[in-house]
């Protein structure tokens, strides 16, 4: 859907790049997750892809055509759901949807059916005529999504669509997005919730300091990074002596306070090797984890940051 090559963008006189030589492929018909800590360049990248700000250099092809030259056309098939609740709280869902449908320039004969589709998809029927400022957090997010669907988008761009809502509403929205994707809509999804991204996205890109650190299918990335990871969680904090003696037996990837991580395809052999030494040291194993890395672990490894902490920077 999008082919981005060598995209760069900098602001102000300092010329500090916000995006630096970004090359990215957003495949059609997939759910594409864009991850990155705050200040990584996510918003700038999305804004350029939506034509809201201009780039300094590079090329962006949307459906095979240069985006800048076909911006108005591109916007006709892009549905945008911003993080903010971008509608009029004084108005009902009915009034908001009719206003946006008209502002978008939908043909008169199509307005009713398209609004009906949006309302049904997002489950707003019961609340259709109520003033939207009275809605719960989940309903507000659903109305925000419904407006993004008014133009029958081929591409839906969602910026943190599940912020501040309860698990049921979150699940409803995630299922709705998956359902829309199954109908052929390409989705660009940004979120701080890694488990959501891992749950619904097919492809991801991780961006930091304006550069794409990694991109591809989620399962490929996790497999490539992790193979098989054995995590041993102890009840006690490991001493220097403990670490030195354990390191002599196996190749340890990481030591944390009470945890050691070992990349291996044969966890039984590793545990057999370690067991006598652990017993002799008086350490107690509290928990064992074995399997692929999850997305959050991948993210931390790639960015060296905790995403949720960085949100408060």
């Amino acid at each position: 859907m999008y082919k981005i090559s060598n995209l760069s963008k900098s602001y102000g006189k300092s010329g500090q790049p916000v995006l630096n030589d970004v090359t990215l492929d957003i495949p059609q018909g997939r759910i594409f997750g864009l991850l990155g800590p705050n200040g990584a360049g996510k918003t700038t990248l999305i804004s350029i892809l939506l034509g809201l700000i201009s780039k300094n250099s590079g090329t962006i092809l949307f459906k095979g055509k240069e985006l800048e030259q076909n911006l108005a056309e591109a916007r006709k098939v892009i549905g945008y759901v911003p993080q903010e609740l971008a509608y009029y709280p004084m108005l009902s869902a009915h009034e908001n949807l009719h206003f946006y449908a008209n502002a978008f320039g939908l043909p008169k004969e199509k307005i009713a059916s398209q609004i009906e589709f949006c309302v049904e998809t997002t489950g707003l029927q019961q609340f259709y005529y109520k003033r939207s400022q009275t809605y719960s957090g989940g309903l507000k997010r659903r109305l925000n999504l419904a407006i993004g669907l008014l133009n029958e988008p081929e591409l839906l761009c969602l910026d943190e669509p599940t912020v501040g809502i309860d698990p049921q509403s979150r699940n409803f929205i995630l299922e709705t997005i998956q359902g829309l994707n199954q109908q052929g809509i390409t989705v660009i999804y940004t979120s701080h919730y890694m488990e959501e991204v891992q749950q619904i996205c097919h492809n991801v890109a991780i961006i930091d300091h304006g550069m794409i650190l990694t991109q591809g299918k989620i399962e490929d990335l996790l497999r490539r990074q992790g193979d098989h990871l054995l995590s041993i969680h102890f009840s006690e904090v490991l001493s220097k002596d403990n670490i030195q003696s354990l390191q002599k037996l196996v190749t340890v990837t990481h030591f944390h306070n009470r945890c050691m991580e070992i990349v291996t395809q044969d966890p039984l052999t590793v545990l057999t090797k370690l067991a006598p030494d652990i017993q002799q040291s008086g350490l107690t194993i509290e928990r064992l984890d074995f399997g692929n890395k999850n997305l959050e672990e991948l993210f931390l490894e790639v960015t060296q940051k905790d995403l949720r902490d960085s949100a408060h920077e």
Partner: protein
Amino acid sequence: MNRFLALIKKEIVVLSKDLHGLFVLFVMPAIFILIMSLAMQDSFDEHSNVSIEYALVDNSNSALSQQLKDQLKLISALNMQEIKQDQFNTNQLKHDFSQDTFKFALILEKDFSQQLFQGNAEQNEQDSAIKVYIAPTVKPNLRRFFSATLRSELIRLKIAATLAQSDDEEFAPSMDAVEKMSKVDINQAYLYQDGMQQENPTAVQQSVPAWLVFAMFFVVVPLSTAFIIERQQGTFLRLRMMNVYPTSLLSAKIVPYYFVNQIQMLLMVLVGMFIVPMLGGNSLNGPSSILGLAIISSATSIAAICFALFISVFAKTTIQATTLGGISNIIFGALGGIMVPKFIMPTYMQEIATVSPMSWGLEGFLDVFLRNADWTSVIPESTSLLIFAIICLGIATTIFNRQGVS
């Protein structure tokens, strides 16, 4: 539906559901006009109930001092309270002045009658038989009024007394005869553009145009607040993504707020015509030219809205917008003769006042409400207002385009 019409319709619906906004736009100015018209009624009324309280101490106790007191008592604008000589002291007077019991104290000394005929031999004000103490809060025009009234009564008294002393019987008139002799008729009339009229301009005739202009410019508060909230909520961003351009977003605000201003104008005029008289005030006379009123009202409205749009794009937060918009309006109002009539300003301030768009609006409204002018009289003010509007809108559009929408 046309996109632009959809934006206008949305604006009207949102506005109609905003009770606070409607209160600010319609009810507050109406109440304001009501209060100002009633409060200022006496200052425009020749038969005003307002009277100036003053103390009189008669140390002379003569026939002439009694005569003066009788004359002064007949002046409705002055309310005398006589204080006996043994009860009067300056400390008590200071206290009375501080309590606003009196504005003046008139002291007639023992040699009042003698000095009235012979004058002050010492030629020294300190030794004058007539002393006036003035409260510090008294404004110069009130002091001049009191002084002129007192002088006038003293002259009349002196003429009467002088003639009464004459041996010639022909010149021994009564006070009534002096009254007749000293009476000089002056035919006073306000000169309007459509001719002379005996009727005085009333408080409501003066206040409605002034506060109407002020109210119209106050659209800056609801408009800029709504604008900034829309920007912060991302609705502009969303509309931008729907290929709605910044110029359309700004222009769509003009139409609904134009109608708001026209309804404001109609409401204020109706308040002046019907509600103020019901509460004992004077009635507002209708405009001399409906077309003139429509032109100046439209021009003022467009200027006010474009100024509000300029503030909206310039301010980053609603607090900034309301502060900036509110203070600008108050400065425009103070400069433009809304709060302080221009005619009492010093010359240089009157010249500065001409830079305020509220002054142009006010002059235009005064043309049709007070000067009985025809529609052509409001063209210069309307042109100035429209030029101001174009400049504001031009700057607002440029900034808004550069800002993008976020």
